[in-house]
């Protein structure tokens, strides 16, 4: 009976399971950015990582930790909704659902039952540049889970009826998350469509319902053949296990799956933006206007990108952030301004162009331009004055504390997500242990420079939501 809701908080990832089966109160993989760093004098916590590749190209990361008798298995495939086929919007996500519908040795519902009857939780999700599947299980069932993941990497065994069924489920997912609620795709699904020009970055990731209806069984099987080979994936095992034993099981169950040629990656680069983009959307269900600003961010692992991670903390993360202070506490435009780098994940788990987005719902008595002026004034402070040592420390402390939660979580979802992303996109999961040093290199000058270059109107998109019905009667605002 939580009465106070944050509509814009952490957009749900496009996931196979909704609330069902996710009763464990753990930070889900789609929770706010598990950013990371460590400032001295705190003890540097080291995440053990063992990284190797099988003969068929499958990447494997093992991270041993016996604190709780659980093991987390995650399989990440390097295919996200960003590069799904052009005339098949929403296909990558629909396909994610099909991975639960039957594989070589597991019939429909059997995968889910196998995990749950062994005492585990599971889910899958589709993101910009990967699709992931994960289970958290009592550690004595690890071999069973590796077998099951290998089984569906090895091949699907599905019918037209399964496809029709999941088409219905996915369409209901779109309805419950987007169509039948106010601010349904705002800003997580909407903003990329207005802020980007390259189709790959700008299409509807959930998919048009008519495109979903057009998907065929043949498409599904071809998609598996093309993108779900071992050489396009990483398997991560974290938690309570014996590494030598895990290696043997992974060899036994995955090594025989054949690698195959991968198609050339499409060009997902985004042409440089030269002037501000403004867009407005009417939302018939929304009782109040809403506003989002989105800026293209620097390329991953550049010094500016690291600086942007710190800027995100300074401006937007936490009740002490500058935008919260200005827009919520001082001006009273809204009760919450939220967002970050990559609304469907965090600043680490993508590969390609990305946006930093901040969004809020406000009363109609305040105009978009009035609010934008305050956003600009807040940004200007970061551009014009070097950040103080105290503010910088606070930003890094927030990141460090959050990082501890990521690696200390019993489900290990967040940690496994970082390991998988660094393996898939950077071929180097060990980066999880170097993040602190990376952020420490950011200087106040670099923060100012980055803010001046990227946080400018010509690099941003402003999206507003206009209520489709006149206000009044229902509204409480005096």
């Amino acid at each position, binding site marked *: 009976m939580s009465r106070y809701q944050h509509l814009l908080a952490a957009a749900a990832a496009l996931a196979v399971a909704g609330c069902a089966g996710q009763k464990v109160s753990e930070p889900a993989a789609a929770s706010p950015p598990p950013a990371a760093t460590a400032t001295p004098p705190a003890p540097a916590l080291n995440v053990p990582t063992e990284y190797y590749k099988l003969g068929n190209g499958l990447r494997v990361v093992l991270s041993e930790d016996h604190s709780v008798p659980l093991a987390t298995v995650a399989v990440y495939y390097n295919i996200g909704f960003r590069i799904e086929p052009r005339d098949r919007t929403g296909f990558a996500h629909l396909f994610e659902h099909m991975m639960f519908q039957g594989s070589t040795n597991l019939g429909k519902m059997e995968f889910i039952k196998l995990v749950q009857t062994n005492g585990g939780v599971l889910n899958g999700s589709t993101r910009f540049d990967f699709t992931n599947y994960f289970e958290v299980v009592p550690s004595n069932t690890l071999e069973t889970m590796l077998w099951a993941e290998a089984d569906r990497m*090895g091949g699907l065994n599905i019918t037209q009826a399964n496809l029709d069924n999941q088409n219905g489920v996915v369409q209901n997912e779109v309805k419950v998350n987007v169509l039948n609620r106010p601010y349904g795709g705002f800003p997580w699904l909407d903003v990329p469509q207005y802020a980007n020009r390259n189709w790959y970055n700008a299409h509807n990731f959930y998919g048009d319902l008519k495109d979903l209806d057009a998907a065929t069984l043949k498409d599904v099987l071809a998609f598996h053949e093309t993108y779900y080979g071992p050489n396009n994936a990483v398997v991560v095992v974290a938690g309570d296990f014996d590494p030598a034993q895990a290696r043997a099981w992974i060899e036994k169950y995955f090594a025989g799956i054949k690698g195959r040629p991968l198609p050339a990656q499409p060009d997902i680069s985004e042409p440089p933006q030269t002037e501000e983009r403004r867009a407005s959307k009417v939302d018939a269900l929304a009782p109040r206007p809403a506003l989002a600003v989105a800026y293209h961010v620097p390329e991953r692992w550049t010094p500016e990108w690291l600086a942007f991670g710190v800027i995100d903390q300074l401006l937007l993360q936490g009740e002490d952030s500058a935008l919260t202070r200005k827009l919520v506490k001082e001006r009273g435009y809204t009760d919450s301004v939220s967002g970050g780098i990559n609304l469907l994940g965090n600043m680490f788990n993508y590969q390609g162009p990305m946006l930093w987005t901040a969004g809020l719902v406000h009363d109609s008595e305040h105009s978009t331009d009035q609010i934008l002026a305050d956003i600009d004034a807040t940004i200007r402070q970061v551009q014009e004055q070097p950040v103080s040592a105290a503010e910088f420390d606070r930003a890094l402390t927030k990141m460090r504390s959050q990082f501890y939660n990521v690696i200390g979580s019993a489900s290990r979802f967040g940690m496994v997500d970082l390991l998988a992303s660094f393996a898939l996109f950077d071929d180097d999961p060990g980066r999880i242990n170097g993040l602190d040093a990376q952020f420490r290199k950011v200087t106040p000058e670099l923060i100012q420079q980055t803010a001046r270059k990227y946080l400018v109107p010509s690099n941003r998109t402003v999206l507003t939501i206009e209520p489709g019905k006149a206000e009044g009667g229902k509204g409480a605002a005096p």
Partner: protein
Amino acid sequence: MRIASAVVLLSCGAAALAVETPPAPSAPKNFQVPAKSERALGNGLQLTFVEFGSIPKTTITAVVRAGNLNEGNNTWLADLTGELMKEGAGARSANQLAEAAASMGGAVNLSVGPDQTSISLDVLSEHGEEAVAMIADLLRRPQLPESELARIKRDFGRQLALSRSQPDSLANETFLALLYPNHPYGKLYPTDAQLAAYTIDQVRAFHHDNFGATRTHIYVAGRFERAKIERAIEQGFGDWAAGAAQLVNPPTGVSKRQIKLIDRPGAPQSTIYLGLPAIDPSQPEYLQLSLTNSLLGGEFSSRITSNIRESKGYAYSPQSSLDVQYRSGYWIEEADVTTEHTGDSLQEIYAEIDRLQREPPSPQELAGMQNYRAGVFVLQNATRGALIGQLAYMDLHGLPDDYLTHLVERIYAITPDQVGAAARKYIRPQEMTLVIVGDLAKVRPQLAKVPQLKGLSLQ
């Protein structure tokens, strides 16, 4: 023996090979719930410590028995008080509190529920004592500044408008009003006029009347220096007035077949809330009912979800649950279903209830759900926040100290017949309240064909 090459052959699409079975798990490992230690201060404030884990963080949560229950008819006065408590406490302003919390690696997390207000700080271990002092300020010395009241009320008004535009919030509000017509639990949202009329004096009085040592329980979990934290708590709370005893006023829920339809023209889905009053966790048969719920609709692999999602494709995330408060509770199935299949979905839900009532689950099906509950038990007790949540749940409902120690064995002791009996005794369709938010022009004709609704007015 299973060999890797079998996987290869099968993966190439060769049909008609014998189906492999999954490798069996090895013997399960033991999991010990981390030990707790408890004491009380002279003024009645309860303390629980759990030293746990290797991550250098500490979570400190204060739970106060002050919630919506204590509002009477002043709906959201507890929420308004909670929100204003963050707007300055002790000598610090709201901004200073937010900055200080962030410098500790945390954030003030304050939430108001039906029975309780809780304040939590999850901080780097070296800041544990500071965090205790901040919580003492927030609970004992909130400024409750009048200057911020108008802004917070405007924020609440906006949230209220948003809630009223969401089908699940509307369904929830209506369902609770029908279930608890004369009780604060039945008033999910205030009217706009009510909200506008609240004064700072009412907020201050609510705080004064409901916050005190006897109603408060502080939990500390993680890595911390026990002696130092304990001293900080004694300093911060030792001289706090005991305050009034907690209010005991559990509602008697309405158990009767009733229906309320809310029109949402053009809605692509119908939001279904179907449920009835049930027992609370202090009752001997609660665990049996809880397992019955898991099997019927509580989990991804449960019967209702398998049926209306995985078989029929009518819904994405249907779920049943037991929602419990102090000495009261209800069972509910919530589902957002395709408008065209609203009647079908309801019939399938009723059919699954009926099937479980008529025929106990197979030992195999029950064992699967028992394994699941035993497995997630570890997850539910393996982080600071989760552990505190479990302990606070036990304390609210007055469960015995060894509740967690014996929970898994008690889950495994439940029999198929007990599940069938619990379904018959507690999940009674003929006494359920049904709320549907949807496109009534399309929904009504479908409902007219649902036998379980016969005789009810669908207007």
